[in-house]
Each structure stands twice: as structure tokens, then as C-alpha cells.
């Protein structure tokens, strides 16, 4: 070990996109190497849990934790890394707000298993085999982590220093954050206030979006496969549910610049408690119909409302989950 700062990165309930995004910083990753010793990073280096367990408390200077807390293993490592890290960052949508896996909070763990191992029409599982948490083999006992009913965010599990949203966080934002952290660790600059959301820009996604925005009155909702959106005009004005107005800026409005509506991965803007509820309120406010019946008809045309408005934020929402 050198006297360089210690860096860890971990994936809990996640897809791996966050790891790719870190590597996508390009030559910036060399700065990481120049300033840090990687002491734990399952996706990139061969360390074991026992190595981490052996570190002193606070040994890790910077830990980027991505993924939600979905099972007992996620929870164990979250707590372990908290104990071993000076700065713990909830990295990416899943760690910050539950992300896509958070939509599992619409069902119980058993319902999900039933769907995956029993009811899925493409299955061939005549014996009804389900994964077992404990299974004895000649070589000994095999264990799987226990899957919880409720997906949690990192902050619902342990104390978190910073939040960095995005699915995944944009590389240029990661690079910026790394600069700030390295400067601070060297004692050459301040760290942001504890609990801050970092790697974002002020205002909302709309502020970064170049599309022309005018008054909004929506009389029908459409999805982008149904028509060719005007490339210049605000997507929401064209009836596409674009989460831009209720999403923190920082991504550079990459989706809307290529004709895709914002999906809301950068999370609720500062001051908003529940991103989905806020966007629902926004959309409801601009529906333009004279009668309650027509309003109901327009509202019914939104496919998968929870998946649309809470695509990344259900686990972190006020309601958190459906009743089990």
C-alpha cells in the first residue's frame, strides 16, 4: 500500500451502468489512479469482503456506493462500507432514490419470485423450482442473500455523506466531483456540506434543454413511438410526458436533445420532496379539457403511471411502497 488516498466502489442492487460511467470519464480515471489506491471495487479489482472487514474503521477515504439495498447482502456491505469509509457517496439513482429496482416496491418479494419462477409465460419450470436461500451440497452449505420485500435507498439504510443522482451519473459530472474530492482530500479546498446533492447543475432539466418552451395545454398524451416529435418544440407541449420540469439539472438534457423525453433519473429538484407526486401535479395542472369525463379519459391514456412518474424515485417517495 502506498500513502495515496483509498478509494472504494461497490455495486449493490444495480445494473453495472454506474461502473461503466466511471470508466467513461476517460483519462480522468488516471487521476483516480494517481491520487488513490483502489482498496475495494468488485467490478474492477479482486478484493474480497474479508479484506474490507479487516480494514480499520474510516480506512477508505472515498467510497462510491451504487445500487439499491435490496437484500441482506446489500445491507451488510452498506453497513460495512459506512463503517470503513470517511466519505460515503450514494452514487447513481438506485443508491440515491431506489432507481428502477425501486419499482419492485409495487409487489412483495414472494410475488416477484412467483412471477419470475412460476407465472412467467416463457418459463419451463414443471417442478416449480424456486431458488433456496440455503442449500446443502456435498461440498457444504450454499447460501443466497435474503431478498427483502422492500427496496431501500442507501440513506434509508445507513448515514450518507453525499448524493449523486443519475442513471447513470454523467461522466463529466463524475469528473467534476472527483476533482472536488481530490482537492479537498489534499487540503486545498472545501468539501460540500454534508448531505449535499453533488454532481448536478442548478434548476431543472428544462433549463439545460434547448427546445423552445411555450404555454402548455395538453389534450392528449402520446408516446414517442406513436409520432415523430417536432425537433424544436418542448416535448411536454407535444403531449409526451417528459419529466424535465420535475428533474434536477445536471445531465445536460441529453435525452431530450435526441428526441427522448426526460425519464427523471436525476431525481427531484432541490426543494421537492416527492418527484413523482410533483410531476403528477404538474401534468394534472396542464391537462386541458372542459369536462371531468374528458379529463378522466386523458388521464387514463397515461400508460403505467407509477412507472412513468416514479421510474427512479418510488423507494424514496413519501409512500415508498405499495401495501404488502
Amino acid at each position, binding site marked *: 500500500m502506498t500513502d495515496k488516498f483509498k478509494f472504494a466502489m461497490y455495486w449493490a442492487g444495480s445494473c453495472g451502468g454506474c461502473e461503466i460511467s466511471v470508466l467513461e470519464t476517460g483519462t480522468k480515471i488516471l487521476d483516480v489512479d494517481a491520487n488513490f489506491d483502489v482498496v475495494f471495487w468488485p467490478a474492477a479489482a479482486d478484493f474480497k469482503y474479508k479484506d474490507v472487514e479487516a480494514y480499520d474503521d474510516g480506512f477508505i477515504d472515498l467510497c462510491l456506493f451504487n445500487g439499491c439495498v435490496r437484500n441482506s447482502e446489500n445491507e451488510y456491505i452498506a453497513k460495512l462500507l459506512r463503517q470503513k469509509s470517511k466519505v460515503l457517496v450514494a452514487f447513481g439513482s438506485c443508491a440515491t432514490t431506489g432507481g428502477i429496482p425501486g419499482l419492485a416496491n409495487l409487489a412483495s418479494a414472494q410475488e416477484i419470485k412467483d412471477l419470475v419462477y412460476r407465472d412467467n409465460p416463457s418459463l419451463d419450470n414443471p417442478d416449480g423450482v424456486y431458488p433456496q436461500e440455503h442449500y446443502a451440497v456435498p461440498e457444504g452449505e450454499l447460501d443466497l442473500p435474503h431478498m427483502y420485500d422492500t427496496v431501500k435507498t442507501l440513506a434509508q439504510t445507513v448515514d450518507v455523506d453525499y448524493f449523486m443522482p443519475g442513471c447513470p451519473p454523467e461522466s463529466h459530472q463524475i469528473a467534476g466531483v472527483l476533482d472536488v474530492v481530490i482537492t479537498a482530500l489534499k487540503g486545498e479546498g472545501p468539501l460540500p456540506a454534508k448531505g449535499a446533492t453533488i454532481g448536478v447543475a442548478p434548476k431543472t432539466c428544462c*433549463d439545460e434543454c434547448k427546445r423552445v418552451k411555450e*404555454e*402548455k395545454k395538453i389534450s392528449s398524451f402520446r408516446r414517442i413511438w406513436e409520432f415523430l416529435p417536432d425537433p424544436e418544440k418542448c416535448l411536454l407541449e407535444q403531449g409526451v410526458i417528459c419529466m*424535465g420540469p420535475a428533474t434536477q439539472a445536471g445531465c445536460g438534457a441529453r435525452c431530450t436533445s435526441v428526441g427522448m423525453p426526460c425519464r427523471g433519473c436525476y431525481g427531484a*429538484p432541490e*426543494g421537492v420532496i416527492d418527484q413523482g407526486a410533483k410531476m403528477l401535479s404538474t401534468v394534472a*395542472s396542464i391537462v386541458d379539457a372542459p369536462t371531468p369525463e374528458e379529463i378522466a379519459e386523458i388521464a387514463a391514456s397515461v400508460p403505467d403511471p407509477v412507472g412513468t412518474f416514479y421510474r427512479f424515485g418510488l423507494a424514496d417517495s413519501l409512500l415508498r411502497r405499495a401495501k404488502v
Partner: protein
Amino acid sequence: MPEDKIAVYFCHCGSNIAGKVDVEKVTAWAAEQPNVVVSREYKYMCSDPGQDLIKEDIQKLGVNRVVVAACSPTMHEPTFRKAASDAGLNPYLLQMANVREHCSWVTEDKDEATEKAKRILNAQIHRLPFNEALDPIEVPVNPAVMVVGGGIAGIEAALKLSATGKKVYLVEKQPSIGGHMAMFDKTFPTLDCAACILTPKMSAAGKDPNIELLAYSEVEEVDGYVGNFKVKVRKKARYVNTDTCTGCAACLEACVVRKVPSEFDQGLGKRTAIYIPFPQAVPLRATIDAEKCLTLKGKKCKQPCTTACGPQAIDFEQQDEVLDFEVGAIIMATGFELWDPTPETRYSYGQLDNVITSLEFERISNASGPTGGHIVLKNGEAPKSVAILHCVGSRDENYQEHCSRVCCMYSLKFSHLIKEHLPETEVYELYIDMRAYGKGYEEFYKRLMDEGVHFVRGRAAEVSSVALSPEEEGRLVVKVEDTLLGIVRRIPADMVILSSGLAPAKDAKSVAQTFGFGCSANGFYLERHPKLEPVSTVTDGIFIAGCCQYPKDIPDTVAQAGAAAAGALALVDNPTVKVEPTVSYIDPEKCCGCHICVSVCPHTAIQYNEEKGVAEVITAACKGCGVCVAACGSNVPQQAGYLDDQIFAEIEGAMAL
């Protein structure tokens, strides 16, 4: 920051609240809550001694936050806020907890009511530390008033206001003012001739220098706020120059399109394509019906009207005119519509001849009506028997639950008129209950009983032409259960008058929306308070009068019109008015310029600043409705008095127990 000292006052409201809520228990509980320094209960908090309790505690105990658990804030919030203010406390540091409408009146069980009252109170105890002192905003008042609707209510209100020297815009949809009253023959119970008492008022309104009469016009947009409404009125093209037209009616004589059903005569009489609705019309000016006029339809016509018109007033090129003006107050007097009995098919309206509505009978019995006042059947003969069916479309769960209030009396009037014209004719009144509640009404009913009218208590079951006896042959037959005799009767009649109820105007809801207030469940305009503010609406500066509020007779309408005029005058007679400071504010540092708030603001109080790329609230135009707060995706507009932390604290408080 001084520490929060909350005082709690729990009102018994006589037995209204104390009858259901254990007031002593809740008051004692409240005394134990965080920040609460004093907790009292009193029989009537709104009384002077009640208000004095608040004032004393503010002054002697240094109370700096107050919650009054009593009735709805729409009732007494101003009362208590004034008391707080008098004692030197900013009125916005006082909150009401509605434990009457939201609790004691709607909760059966006493224990449940007590627990609920605690939660309602706790919500405000939690909220108060987040309240901020606010100062009312003072704005200038435009002294002009707009009256919408030129029936008796609108005319009366306009005349009253004009008498005080105020400028009045009287807007009427039809070519002439007069409304329904102008169609009536006699008025109950005095049997005054409607025209004799109405036309002097119409003519006075038409000539009044303070009244700008905008007939054949409709309000398109209303913007602004109390004391400062901006109005857009569309003056529809009459195709007649009203400055030069003298109302001589020579064009009517000349017009070749002569068979247009007259709206004023309920389609019973005919008019020409260029017309004056009735001889006493105000303004007495001709109007061309664009849908009937051959020239305007692009067909060939020698235009004899143009030839006949001495002053050359006819102008086929005339266009609608849009007028913009500002007023300080608005009186809505848009009236009612007669309930159309067509859906009630068992009464065969529109199916059988001589089944007519009450308004049709008004025209038939009117000396200036299509029959010259002769009560006759379609074939011109006098009816030997007439049945008058009460409560058609009123007091009927299938159509309108409400009592239309005037039908019993006008039905009695009809009986009288029939007996007067045709003493030999049998008249049957088929009623459910006889509601003769006004001054001189019961006496009028008694008088009719002596005039030989047959009163049958029962709602008519059907009107048919199916004869079961020679006596019924070729006549209408009304089937009814006479609930006093306990038998089903078949009454042969030559004429059946359906005493149709009064219905809200079909566009009442959209009109109310345009003006920013609401309608009751029955569709009539909603008053601010059913008892204490029957002519105000929830929108400050907008008043209502007449049947647009609820069915009523002429005396009540006139009285209400006077009250509405007084309400408007009390406002516009002041140079300024204080408006609620609970308005929105947009932080330009946070606004992303997405235009959503601009789109949703119902009062056009938010403008987009192109230069800065952000939205801005025009404080004076903001009414504090909170729509922008709800609509903004990033919580940028914030409404004073309704900040997120205040609302969340309230929710926390309600849920905490």
C-alpha cells in the same frame, strides 16, 4: 427569534361544537402541547368577550401565535384576525381550526368527534411556528361596475348604482333587456301587469347617462381582481347602425322572411329575419338574425329592408365589436332557464298538441302575445278544461331535486287568469304541496279556492290522448293519483300547462368559471355564505343577484339586486382595497423558464420575461389560488401563508396522534 407562545381558544359555538366534542378534555389536552402557553374554552369565541380573551392574552401573556378552534375560517377568520391585529399581533400569526363543519357537524360519535377535534387542532399547533407575519397589499379601486344580465335583477342593480353616480356597464346577451319578466302578463299575487311595472325601469336604464347599455353583447373574458377587473365584451353585430336606427319597425314590415319562430313568444308567434323582439324593447333597435337573413346567408334578396329604412341604418358589412374596459366590481344577474320538459316523456310535451309550458302560457295569456291575450288552443278554440301540472322537473330526483319556489304561485295566477277570461272553463291544479310562503301568497291561494278551481293533490302520472270514455274522446287525459281521495283519477282536459321548474342557465358552469367562482350542486351560482353573504361569491368583488343564485320571485330578486348593488358600492366607493397578501413569488434564481406556471395561471398573473428567461408574478394580479405552486415541477413558486413547511407541519400534526 422570540420563542413561540401559542394560545389555544376552543369555542363551544353554543351546542354546535360542545354538543359533540368534549371541549374541556380537548382544552386541557391542548394546554400540554409544545409551545402552548394558554388554552381556554369559551361559549362563543366570536362574541366581544370571546375576542377580548384573545386580546388580553396577547397583551398580558405575550402570546405571539394564536389558534382558534371554532367554525369554518370562511365564517370568522376575518373576525379573529382583526381581534389579533387590534391587540398588536400580525393577523397572519392566527390560524383557525375548523372543528364545526369539519368535525362536530359531521361526526356522529362523541368520542370520535373529540379525538378528531384534537387532530384538527394539533395540525394548527404544529403549523403555527412556521407561520410568518404578512402585510395586506393595498390596491386602488376602479369605481365603475359591470352588471351582467339585463333582467329585472340586472336592471334594478344598475339603476341603484347609477343613482349613486357610479358608472355602470349593463351587459345583456339578448337584443333587448327585460329578461323573463318582460314575457309575463301578470305578476302574482297582486296581478300587476308585468310590463306596466317593468318597462319604466327598462326605459330608465336605457336613458340613464351613467349606464352604458351593452345589449346583444357577451362577456368573453374577465381578468384581474377585486377593484380592478379587466373585461372583454363582444358586442355582436346587429347589422344595423344603432346610432341611426330609430326603432320605427319599417324594416320589419318590409322583410320577406316572415316565418321565423319568435324566441320572445316561445316559438308560438312568428317574427321576421330583421326584428325587434317586442314593442317595448330597450334599446329599441332592429337586429338582423344572420342565420335567417337571405342576404347574410349569401342568397338573393332585393333587400327591401334597406329600401324601407329611412335613416339608412342597415349595414350588412357590420362586424362584431370587442370592447375592453375596467371595472372595480361585477354583479352577475344572468337569470335562469325554464326547465325543458321534453325528457319527461310521460307528459307528452312536444308530442301532443296543447301540452304547453308555463312560459308558453305566459305568452298566450299576454295581451301583446301571439294570441292577443286570448286563451285558446292550437285550433283557435277556447279550452273547456285546463289542467295545470305542478313540479314538472322540480322536486324530482330524476331531474332537479330543488323546489323552484315560484311555480305554485304562478300556477295559481294561471288559474285566476283562465277563470277571468273563461269563467265556464274547468281548471285543475295538480299539486304535491301548495307552497304559498310570501307576502300575500296564502291569501291569494285562499282567493283561488273560492274561484272554483279544482285542487287535486297528487303528482300527475301521465298525459295521453288515449280515450277510455266518450267524454275523453279527442281530448287530453291526465292520469293522477288524488292522494286526498285515495283514488286514481282521469281528468279530461283540452289544455295541459306544465309548470316547469327553474333551471340554471345551460352555460352557468362555464360562465362561473370565466368569472372565477363556483356553482352549487344544483347548478346555480354558489354564494359565499348561504345566510350571511347570499349575494357575494368566493371571488372578492363579484356579486350575484336574482335567479342565477337560486329560483326566486320578483320581490326577492329585486331585494337581492339592491343588496348586490350595495355590496358593490361598498367596495367601489373606496379609493383603495386591501387584498390578501397570500400571493405567489417566483425566485428567478430557481426558475427554469418552462412556462408551465404561465400556462396554468387563471388570472394571467404570471408573465414570462424573455430577457431573463424566467417567469415573474405580477403581485397585484395574483389571487393566491396556488395553482402555480401545484403545477411547477420544481417548487419554485411559493405562496405566502401556504409554504411547504407550513402545510407539511399541518399534515404531521394531524397524523401525529
